[in-house]
């Protein structure tokens, strides 16, 4: 299945997935070299969700993001250099070094910011949808959150409000099975978070979140529904992080067989295999994209490393109260 997409779109999706994968591998490496202050929550392994959803959006649409948000920014089209510089705490970062890994925002591309409070992005996405409705634009908001956030009160408040007001929001639950170290089965009595949608009178769909084309197709339906003023959809994407919760987490709570099974179904590998098998791309073409992305990431790293740190007194910029 290729969702009847032209080759250019397929290549674009692969490129974005590779950008996220290579970017995150590089962030991991830089962290090891003590160049990344604080902590990091890597998106590697979940690329098909961000890319599948963002490829269904237009430039004027909005997204909200989470502490595990590098992938969302890249998929929506953020400048890699500025994102890398932000993660390294540099002045040239998209938030001038004020936000860091957990608080990346890029308003130029409709990326309304990552919040590091689990579940806090949901009502903000509702508000962006409300704004689009009142301003009578046909903008859509994609709201990313994890299955852990589905246990916050904001999940309920936001689903209900968006449904009651028919707002153009696509709620994207990235279910990677673990909220830090706590398996989903220990905190909820259902397997599919999307089942909760029926309680709000909206469609709920569960898909393989490692299949970028399936995520894309599902998102297209949800986005179309939102754009037509028919209200929100809850899309649950089952996925898995390649590494632990944060940089310091070796993720020993995950059974070896489970990890192996998910890594075998790596979203980037699956997509490449599909493209090759279906004859949509040649391996030489894929290699060329890989090389191009690797160069792009190297360039972003060089830019971030060479950029200056903010001057201490910049701590007082944008203080108004």
């Amino acid at each position, binding site marked *: 299945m290729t969702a009847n997409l032209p080759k250019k779109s397929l290549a674009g999706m692969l490129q974005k997935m590779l950008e996220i994968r290579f970017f995150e591998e590089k962030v991991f490496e830089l962290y090891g070299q003590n160049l990344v202050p604080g902590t990091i929550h890597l998106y590697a392994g979940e690329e098909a969700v961000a890319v599948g959803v963002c490829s269904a959006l237009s430039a004027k649409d909005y997204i909200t993001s989470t502490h595990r948000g590098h992938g969302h920014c890249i998929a929506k089209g953020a400048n890699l250099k500025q994102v890398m510089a932000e993660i390294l705490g540099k002045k040239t970062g998209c938030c001038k*070094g004020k936000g860091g890994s957990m608080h990346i925002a890029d308003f130029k591309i409709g990326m309304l910011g990552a919040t590091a409070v689990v579940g806090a992005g*949901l*009502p903000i996405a509702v*508000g962006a949808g409300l704004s689009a409705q009142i301003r009578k634009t046909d903008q859509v908001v994609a709201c990313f959150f994890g299955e852990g956030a589905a246990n916050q009160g904001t999940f309920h408040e936001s689903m209900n409000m968006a449904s009651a007001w028919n707002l153009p929001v696509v709620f994207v639950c990235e279910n990677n099975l673990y909220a830090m170290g706590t398996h989903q089965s220990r905190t909820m009595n259902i397997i599919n978070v999307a089942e909760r949608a029926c309680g709000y009178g909206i469609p709920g769909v569960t898909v393989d979140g490692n299949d970028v084309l399936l995520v894309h197709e599902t998102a297209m339906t949800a986005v179309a529904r939102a754009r037509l003023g028919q209200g929100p959809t809850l899309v649950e994407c089952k996925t898995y992080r390649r590494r632990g919760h944060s940089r310091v987490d070796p993720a020993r709570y995950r059974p070896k067989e489970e990890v192996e099974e998910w890594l075998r179904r790596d979203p980037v590998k699956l997509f490449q295999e599909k493209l090759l098998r279906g004859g949509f791309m040649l391996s030489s073409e894929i290699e060329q994209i890989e090389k191009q992305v690797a160069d792009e990431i190297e360039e972003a790293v060089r830019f971030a490393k060479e950029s200056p740190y903010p001057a201490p007194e910049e701590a007082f*910029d944008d203080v108004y*109260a």
Partner: protein
Amino acid sequence: MREALREEMRRDPLVFLLGEDIGRYWGGAFKVTEGLAEEFGELRVRDTPISENAIVGAAVGAAVTGMRPVAEIMFGDLTALAMDQIANQAAKMRYMFGGQTSVPLVIRTPFGAGVNIASHHSQSLEAWFMHVPGLLVAVPATAYDAKGLLKEAIRGDDPVFFCEHKLLYPIVGEVPEEEYTVPFGVGDVKKEGSDVTVVATLFMVHKALKAASELEKEGIDVEVVDPRTLVPLDKETIVKSVKKTGRIVIVSEDCKTAGVSAEISAIVVEEALDHLDSPVRRVAEPDTPIPFSPPLEQCVIPNEEAIIKAVKEVVG
């Protein structure tokens, strides 16, 4: 208040209201928004589910995408339910995102005791919001100030926490026919005097003025300073008054510990200690929850007698 909302909504189509029961069927628990749904429609005057965190969150999301929302939280006590969106999101976004966005949002809510509705509907929590960098805090005491500050709040680009006091709604005051706003950070001397400075906010301004006229009969000339906004706080007007009178009593309905009166007291000590002829006195809620039964409630709300007593102590 209603005039301010109506005028701003007529002036700017991006201004809209959201909150519980603010629409045509109720007009707000204190009737502040009465009649506005009829004029502006339900798209711009929106009754919400009982979801305080999502009400503020939705206002934040709308504010960062070009709207100018005014969210009403029915009682100030319920802002506890929305604290993440107020303190972690609205207050932080402009700074945390490196100035890429501002959050032009107003959160209106009534505080204050005195109507026998006990611990969950009577608190004065202004100090919570003073403590979070990134929020402007308004505390109007008169109709003139309330209207002018609310218009200023709606036009500003940063989040404003707009404190109202439920006993102030019925108090009638003169408001000019012509257009005006009241700037933030500019206190108002509500009564000039030479013997002692009384700084008071919200409903306490009226109690302070009553106490001042009682004290006048005894020959004590009280100056009543109303800061009108707590963030930014007009330190200059307070310090100037203290330098003139050499004495200060701070009256605030919120709890004494780590409250509004504590902050103002610290500022006076830091900036005008040499001018003080007697120690700073505070009249504030004595760190209890607000009780229900009228004699209990009256016991903990600062009153004119307590203000008079404190003034006499500092005047010596």
